[in-house]
């Protein structure tokens, strides 16, 4: 059995409802056919945080999020959100899927997509009304897309599409957000706008889990990291977890190449 890695933040301000963890991933294993994608992963979040899930390609980062949300079947293990089943906590969960997961030629406007975030608060047959539309516009404003509300989603740039998905997640008014590579293929300005927004969510006491690729920005963006390579290598506060040792454990030989690359870049800049 793997040792259970808990990422509880330093317990300086014990909240009243502190015993209930925000997220509890317990012994989760996921496989495609015979090949394990996630192996016996334990992850517990007890306090609101901005958590980066990092690891090499094929490490199961997206799969971890999908497993938590019930989008892929678990071979074993269990997941709880606020101490209860994920199915019963749908209203407190927000989701930003990978941008490529939908057809951007679908005949809907930007506002339509953001409105979908409010569907969870509506019942069967109930259509979004003036309240929902006003709220959706507010969410669009938060990501700086208010001028694009009536555009067809296919006319947006990659960064704008990503912000549309973010606005839809904001419209969900969740407590825990799961974001699958929100920084993939976006320009520098969008990346800045997104990270400012994530920090704002964090300040409001929300928890945000982000699948992230960029090792350079990871220690700047996140106060907690989970380092994954099929197994969970390490998880906890970035300062103590994002270490050379853990990076090597997570990336193995692949990081050596990265090391050499960055050295090459450095020596180049020095000779210039």
């Amino acid at each position, binding site marked *: 059995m793997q040792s259970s890695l808990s990422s509880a933040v330093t317990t300086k301000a014990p909240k009243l409802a502190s015993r209930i963890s925000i997220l509890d991933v317990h012994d989760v294993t996921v496989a495609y056919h015979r090949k394990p994608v996630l192996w016996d992963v334990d992850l517990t979040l007890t306090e609101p945080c901005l958590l980066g899930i990092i690891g090499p390609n094929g490490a199961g980062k997206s799969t971890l999020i999908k497993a938590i949300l*019930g989008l892929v079947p678990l071979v074993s293990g269990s997941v709880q959100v606020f101490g209860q089943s994920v199915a019963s906590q749908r209203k407190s969960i927000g989701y930003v899927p990978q941008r490529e997961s939908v057809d951007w030629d679908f005949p809907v406007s930007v506002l339509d997509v953001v409105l979908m975030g409010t569907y969870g608060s509506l019942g069967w047959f109930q259509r979004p009304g003036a309240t929902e539309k006003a709220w959706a516009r507010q969410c669009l404003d938060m990501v700086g897309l208010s001028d694009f509300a009536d555009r067809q989603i296919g006319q947006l740039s990659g960064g704008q599409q990503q912000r549309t998905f973010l606005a839809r997640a904001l419209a969900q008014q969740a407590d825990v957000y799961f974001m699958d590579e929100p920084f993939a293929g976006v320009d520098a300005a969008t990346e800045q706008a997104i990270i400012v927004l994530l920090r704002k969510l964090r300040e409001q006491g929300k928890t945000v889990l982000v699948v992230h690729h960029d090792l350079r920005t990871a220690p700047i963006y996140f106060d907690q990291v989970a380092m994954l390579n099929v197994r969970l290598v390490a998880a906890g506060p970035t300062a103590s977890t994002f270490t050379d040792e853990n990076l090597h454990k997570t990336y193995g030989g692949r990081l050596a190449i990265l090391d050499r690359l960055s050295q090459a870049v450095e020596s180049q800049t020095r000779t210039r």
Partner: protein
Amino acid sequence: MFDWLPYNTQVVLVGVTLLGVCSGVIGCFAVLGRRALVGDALSHATLPGVGIAYLLAGGKHFAFMLLGGFVSGLLGIGVLSILKRFTRIREDAAIAIVLSTFYGGGIVIATVIQAQASGGQAGWDTFIFGQSVGMIWDDAQWIMALGLVTLVIVALLFKEFKLVAFDPAFAHVQGWPARAIDFTMMLLLLVAVVTGLPAVGVLLMAAMLIIPASAARLWTYRLSRMLFLAAAIGAGSGIAGALLSSSVALPLGPCIILFAALFFLTSLMFAPERGLLARAFQRRRDRIALLADLRAGKEPI
């Protein structure tokens, strides 16, 4: 309004109008969900059921044959999802397997019926190519009933269908039973196929679903408007096809499809933004503007 037409043509007109509206609307979800070929497989999958129902009923019994078609269509959906889920066969291959196997089965049953003396003057083979002459008021009533039920369900579940068609994973995370909603869409697709069978036939039914929806898609980027447009194009092709078919004694199905194709071609040429002409003009304008910038020595932004 159509008093000047023979009674039978009036019945057919009512039937095909509602048929066009329904297949147009349901076709939108099929096309957007990349299910155009699934629709084709479904319509072929209904054939054995229609034949068996004919044999069991001992003759042409409209509602019973529709039921037979529905059941064997369901079986087709089942086989398709089993192939998709439990084997590594690609979806296009799975669709082709279901389509041809069921159609083959249907043809075998057809031959059995033909061999029986009673099946001589047929009736049931109209389900392959479609025929309007045989449509009676009872049939039209069935089409109306099923069509209205379909439209009411789409109107009620519009929000849910839209969400699941666009982003099923997000729908699931929000707590909607995405699979069940998706299956409901599939069922409505099957109902549309089955009701259209007698008029349009197994071979051309898929076109009734795909062509009006594809034409409508060219005119708008709003799902609601796309549904209305596809309904109008479906109904228009149905009415025009029925009038042509009754006046010069041509088969109904092909007439409807040809009119639908005409609508599609017109849309493809003249639709704003997505039409071929509009795109050609846009390319020209872009090029002229770029050349002007280039000559003025502007820097690219």
